[in-house]
């Protein structure tokens, strides 16, 4: 049999992987085997966290809204606010509510008063 060298296929494959992991720290961007593993882990994390991201942000918004509702009003809370929101059939979602609460406190207070006053 003639001698067959394996050529450049492996190198080209590994180059792509290395490019992906080029910004990783230390050996994770330098050593081939480590790079492959780290790329796999990175992709797995990325896949898993795409769903997590939605959950995490909703959690954050809820906590922020809760903090703001409890701030001056003693007996109010996030749960009551949301309940009243739904009763009044307002379509504001938590993200927008949280951003309003942050950027424009007066606006949020107005919304809040409107909701609770006309339960």
């Amino acid at each position, binding site marked *: 049999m003639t001698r067959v060298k394996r050529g450049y296929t492996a190198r080209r494959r590994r180059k792509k992987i290395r490019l992906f992991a080029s910004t990783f720290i230390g050996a994770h961007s330098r050593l081939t085997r480590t790079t492959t593993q780290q790329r796999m882990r990175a992709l797995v994390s990325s896949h898993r966290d795409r769903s997590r991201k939605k959950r995490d*942000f909703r959690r*954050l*918004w809820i*906590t*922020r809204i809760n*903090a*703001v509702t*409890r*701030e001056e009003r*003693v007996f109010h809370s996030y749960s009551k606010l949301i309940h009243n929101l739904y009763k009044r059939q307002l379509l504001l979602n938590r*993200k*927008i509510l*949280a*951003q*309003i*609460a*942050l*950027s*424009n*406190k007066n*606006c949020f207070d107005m919304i809040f008063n409107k909701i609770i006053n006309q339960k």
Partner: protein
Amino acid sequence: MAAAKPTVSSFFLTLASSSNDPSSSSPTTVTALPRSRFLSAGSSPKFSIAHSKPSFVTSSSPPRHKLPVRCQQQQNPPSIPPEQRWMFEESEINGPDIWNKTWYPKAADHISTEKTWYIVDATDKILGRMASTIAMHVRGKNLATYTPSVDMGAYVIVINAEKVAVSGKKRTQKLYRRHSGRPGGLKVETFDQLQQRIPERIVEHAVRGMLPKGRLGRALFTHLKVYEGPEHPHEAQKPVPLPIRDKRMQVQK
């Protein structure tokens, strides 16, 4: 081209001018979004390259203290002539997009020296309930700017820590355990004994258990200052009494 607006300062967008930018005029009052400036001038390299670009008049961002980022109407939107719109990013023309990007604090939003200081007198307060409120404030969960990854909380001073109260028979029955790491090194103490020995540790132990465990949690813990008597060395920080909502926190005599 440059619309003359009375309250607006025009500035040439070079890197030099960026040094006198909003960060130096950071407001002294706390609360919310105000600190994050939307025009971080000098960050875009385009500006420094094209000096020949006509200087356009912009607002010095949300410049004043309590002026947070407005919803859609910027009071002084930068008046970029339409033929130059392509040179600038969306956020520079209209301000930051607050509806599609959840707010995240910048460094100017959590400067330690500008945080609130609270003070609690622990005399006859139920230990756990007090610790819970303290932990909330130290972590920053009472603020709209709460972020789990950033230390947005306040500082809390606790005085008269040796007078903290517990209900029931906890005074003689609550155990504090610690282990020295060596076999047989479990040391047990009752609440009473620990109060005689190191009274601050009781409050610290309680609050530490309620703070997150981790690097940030440990950093948060350093924001709690517990003292034995009525004196504390933080007068210069002008601490404010901690707002207490829990009615059952004070022991009724």
